[in-house]
């Protein structure tokens, strides 16, 4: 039998690893752009303070990069060990962007990071500036390929099932690369990273100002972060809207679950700002709704409906029935590869094969499933509504808060009053965890909203996991938690230590300080 405990533990292990890895990624993305901006000003003006700023924030960037690098590699370990069936079934497609990320973006990023740190006195100002922007490009390209892979899990385009090899095979790399879900997720995710970088610079600079040290340094850093942060915060909401729109086109159940929308409303649908989803009664209690809003966001029209959970379950039920035909035809075609009728049936219903596989949780004989089992399998297509509903709302709320915060920071910056309001500086320091919280919530919504699938509509999660025991996953999970917790403590210690030391610490930290003179601007 399938060991559900092993499946759930494998999910937990993968989720924790991914969330841990993503503690470092957004700061890398955001700080890399901040470094590019600061060094550009340095090269244009030749003023040393901008070089000091680039080097200090670069030093913190280096700590974050060193701590984050390779923490994601353990996910690759898990693909092989905990998700062997998944790896076989979709590895041909999923592995391509991961391999490209490893070969191209990672090496680009890692090589130029070396040049960034050790090239200050060995390269011209423009040459070093180009390196800094290439670090940013490399970081963003890494994110692109990872999100191409993830986007394919959400919307599996450019691939077809081969019953001989029992795997999905690539039919169009262009479709995989330009998958609208992947593209929307990419720009939304990197924008969130830029917000993280801006908030980090704001918070650390605010701390300096509150302590009354490094005033000019901190004010200039805040000025950069305020304008960059405002642009990024606006982008993340606008591009998040795009991400939501693509989800509404390709993952209707995810959108319905996020909205806890059980029935289809007449167009344009209202948006539920507050409510208590009742999973047992399949309704949302005490809902406060904004008319038209969801219809406009999800369909960008006034006359198109946004389907609710119950009608989507009814649709899933018919797909489960179609999947049963695909399943039976697949079994026949595997046994008799020349059976033309079986192959024709499989071809006609293969898009619903994954829905048929959902029945494996309930019966040995998928083709003879009872109506009750079919209904159960159809309801399995509904993700966990309650956490999705609230995670999404907290994420969006934080996103709008950042727009207000950075608008205020930008206004104070324009008035040259960034250091005058201590309440604002305290606020800037206090909100430091928020971008990480919203990013993790975003990933939670994206990945839990994809359940019960690893590949949406193609492969159920419970059939993707390897046949390993829960005990072995517990052991490796414990190893992960111990090791990654130790790393997290060291990361925090180093980051706090070098933040406290301030820009003057860079005099001892940067290789640039090992030789006199400055790169020519």
């Amino acid at each position: 039998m399938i060991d559900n405990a092993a499946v759930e533990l494998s999910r937990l292990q993968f989720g924790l690893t991914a969330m841990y890895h993503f503690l470092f990624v957004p700061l890398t993305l955001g700080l890399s752009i901040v470094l590019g901006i600061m060094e550009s000003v340095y090269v244009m003006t030749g003023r040393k303070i901008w070089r000091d700023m680039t080097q200090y924030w670069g030093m913190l960037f280096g700590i974050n990069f060193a701590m984050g690098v390779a923490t994601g590699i353990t996910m690759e370990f898990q693909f092989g060990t905990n998700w062997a069936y998944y790896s076989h079934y979709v590895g041909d497609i999923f592995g391509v962007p991961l391999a490209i990320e490893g070969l191209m973006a990672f090496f680009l990023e890692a090589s130029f990071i070396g040049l960034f740190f050790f090239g200050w006195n060995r390269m011209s100002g423009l040459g070093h500036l180009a390196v800094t922007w290439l670090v940013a490009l490399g970081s963003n390209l890494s994110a692109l390929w990872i999100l191409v892979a993830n986007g394919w899990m959400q919307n599996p385009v450019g691939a077809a099932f081969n019953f001989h090899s029992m795997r999905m095979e690539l039919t169009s790399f262009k479709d995989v690369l330009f998958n609208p879900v992947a593209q929307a997720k990419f720009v939304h995710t990197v924008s969130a990273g830029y917000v993280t970088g801006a908030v980090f610079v704001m918070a650390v600079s605010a701390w300096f100002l509150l302590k009354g040290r490094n005033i000019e340094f901190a004010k200039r850093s805040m000025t950069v972060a305020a304008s960059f942060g405002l642009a990024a915060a606006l982008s993340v909401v606008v591009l998040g809207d795009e991400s939501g729109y693509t989800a509404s086109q390709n993952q209707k159940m995810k959108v319905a679950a996020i909205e806890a929308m059980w029935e289809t409303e007449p167009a344009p649908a209202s948006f539920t700002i507050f409510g208590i989803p009742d999973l047992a009664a399949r309704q949302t209690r005490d809902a406060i709704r904004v008319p038209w809003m969801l219809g406009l966001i999800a369909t960008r029209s006034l006359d198109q409906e946004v389907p609710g959970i119950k009608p989507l379950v009814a649709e899933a039920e018919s797909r489960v029935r179609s999947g049963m035909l695909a399943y039976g035809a697949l079994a026949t075609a595997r046994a008799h590869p020349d059976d033309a009728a079986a192959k024709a049936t499989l071809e006609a219903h293969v898009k619903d094969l994954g829905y048929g596989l959902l029945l494996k949780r309930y019966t040995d004989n998928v083709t003879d499933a009872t109506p009750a089992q079919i209904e159960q399998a159809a309801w399995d297509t509904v993700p966990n509504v309650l956490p999705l509903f609230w995670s999404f709302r907290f994420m969006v709320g934080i996103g709008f808060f950042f727009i207000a915060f950075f608008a205020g920071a930008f206004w104070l910056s324009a008035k040259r009053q960034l250091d005058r309001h201590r309440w604002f500086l305290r606020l800037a320091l206090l909100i430091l965890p928020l971008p990480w919280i919203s990013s993790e919530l975003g990933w939670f919504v994206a990945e839990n909203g994809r359940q019960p699938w690893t590949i949406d509509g193609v492969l159920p999660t419970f059939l993707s996991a390897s046949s390993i025991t829960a005990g072995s996953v517990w052991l490796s999970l414990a190893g992960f938690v111990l090791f990654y917790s130790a790393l997290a403590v060291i990361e925090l210690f180093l980051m706090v230590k070098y933040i406290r030391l301030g820009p003057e610490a860079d005099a001892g930290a940067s290789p640039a300080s090992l030789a006199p003179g400055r790169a020519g601007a």
Partner: protein
Amino acid sequence: MRRFTYWQEIVGVLCLKAVGLVLLYLFFFAPADRPTATQQAVAHHLLTTPGSATRDEVNHDR
């Protein structure tokens, strides 16, 4: 003396991480712990039984 502290700490962290990752790999994710899913194993997993093939069955298919 302080000028090299930053790099010493960074290199130290990277070494610690390399050792930790190798240990994780050796203890939990080495080939001996890893089932290899062939097309026969996947077919068996998806089509034959409601449960999955055991690791022995999977490795048999190699």
